């Protein structure tokens, strides 16, 4: 009973936070609502006995990526979105249409592809550390290594893009900005 109650509380807060993310006008409040949403999702993962996934959800999304989001938002010092004027123009209508299309897509996915079956709790231990580690290093080893190569390439690319001037300037000092 308690588990069910916790599930409903987590789901309710999760949906509420997701709605707040798209409806609030202040960008920092939006980002913080998204963090709340992600934390509730982590709680739902933990209820599915997938503790590793839950912890990674908090560690990576809520703890690292959202902090970067907040950093960028504060750095750009975005003000509140202007409300009211131009509320019902074509672009906004298109945005709403795309969102609706995604909703329909989700419904079709669940109803048609899965045949309307509601899947219950997955096999115990599916989201555990051992299971994920074994899958990563046996079944999905090649894709795992390819992704790590891709990420390394991305890191090198970022370093190349962000550095200013020729290589000699980089070697001369530790930055030289300030």
């Amino acid at each position: 009973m308690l588990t069910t109650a916790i599930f409903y509380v987590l789901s309710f807060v999760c949906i509420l936070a997701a709605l707040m993310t798209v409806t609030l006008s202040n960008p920092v409040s939006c980002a913080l609502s998204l963090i709340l949403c992600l934390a509730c999702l982590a709680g739902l993962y933990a209820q599915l006995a997938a503790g590793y996934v839950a912890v990674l959800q908090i560690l990576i999304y809520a703890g690292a990526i959202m902090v970067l989001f907040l950093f960028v938002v504060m750095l750009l010092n975005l003000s509140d979105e202007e409300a009211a004027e131009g509320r019902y123009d074509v672009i906004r209508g298109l945005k709403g249409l795309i969102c609706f299309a995604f909703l329909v897509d989700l419904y079709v996915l669940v109803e048609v592809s899965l045949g309307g079956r509601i899947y219950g709790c997955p096999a115990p231990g599916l989201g555990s550390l051992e299971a994920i580690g074994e899958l990563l290093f046996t079944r999905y080893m090649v894709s795992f290594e390819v992704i790590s190569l891709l990420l390394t390439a991305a890191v090198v690319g970022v370093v190349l893009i962000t550095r200013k001037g020729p290589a000699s300037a980089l070697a001369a000092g530790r930055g030289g900005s300030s």
Partner: protein
Amino acid sequence: MQEINGVSYLTKQIWTDATWLRFLSLNELGFFLMLIAGVLVLTFVLAYGTFVVWAERKVAGHVQDRLGPMRVGWHGWLQTLADGIKLMMKEDIYPTLADKPLFVLAPPIVFLSAFVGYAVVPFSQNAQMADLDIGVLYIMATASLGVIGLIMAGWASNSKWPLYGAMRSAALTVAYGIPLGLSIIPVLMVAGSLSMQDLVQSQNGGILHWNFFRCWPFMPLAFIIFFISNLAETNRVPFDIAEAESELVGGYHTEYSGVSFSVFFLAEYAAMYLACAVTTTLFLGGYLPPDLSGIPLILSLALLGIFLFWRFKTFHDRSQVSEAIFCAILVAAITLLWGVWPYFFWFLAKTGVLLYLMLHLRWTLPRLRIDQMMYMCWKVLTPVAFINILGTGLWWMWITGIPKNWWPY
């Protein structure tokens, strides 16, 4: 498990460890017990925080050739209590232009992120709320949420200095988080588990089996990286650039006053103790005794005797009652802990040493600039941590041999 000393043998039948603290299933009874355990841990954190604040001020005083607090109680040991009461009676001021909900929510979130980590801290063999199979990751995840509270505080204050402090801590999170995560991997490789109990048990067998004393020089290097990153995570000098008072007034807590201000400080001390507890578990054998067959017991009892003799010889009547209470609490605590809960005693002793190291560093080192901090985290600690992982792996392969099924196909 081996016996520690005679006293523990006598009392072991009566009450070994707080066995009733351990429960894993979350039914109604488990939920109720977990509430009780949470209150117990909260009491521990509050009591410890009060003590550490006093200790910090004494250390600061003696480092700077002062006496520190001396008025309230014997050598000022009740000073924190007096300050706490003072802070509670002060007015909570909210800036007019502050984002009030976020402003009010920020201190509790910072404290919560430090506090929930205590759920997996192994105070002793049985005194642990939940032995998760991902214990270390859990603590790192919850501790990383504290930054969000700091950012909320900095943003909601709607003022320059808090915003700068919040941006600095956001930039730092990413910088120290990577060496922090990488430096625990050698320990995890050796232990083969992420559970806190398994990590402690993998160091069983005396002081030379502790991770810090194994695999030189890789493990001590990992210890140093982990300790430095933890200093940065808990916003301690020399890495407290998010609240640098000589540059940013008070950083993210500039606009806070009264109780909300004290909650920030409580959170800092809770996070400090948590960091020391994790460091102890990972590198210093956790709650395991050093196993030097009775020598520490005799030495410590002798030291305690000398201390008491010296105190009572120079007894002066101004603070007699307070001093007597202090000594009585000290003796009772040490006797109780050593006799009844020896593991808990060793855990407290080891974390105490690390905590003292943190306090002493704060009052001896100057603060780093943010670019020096970034340079150190990204260009020194991260590569060294990577090399460390490689070295430990090779060492471990040399000890245990190459596993037969190293190729999965």
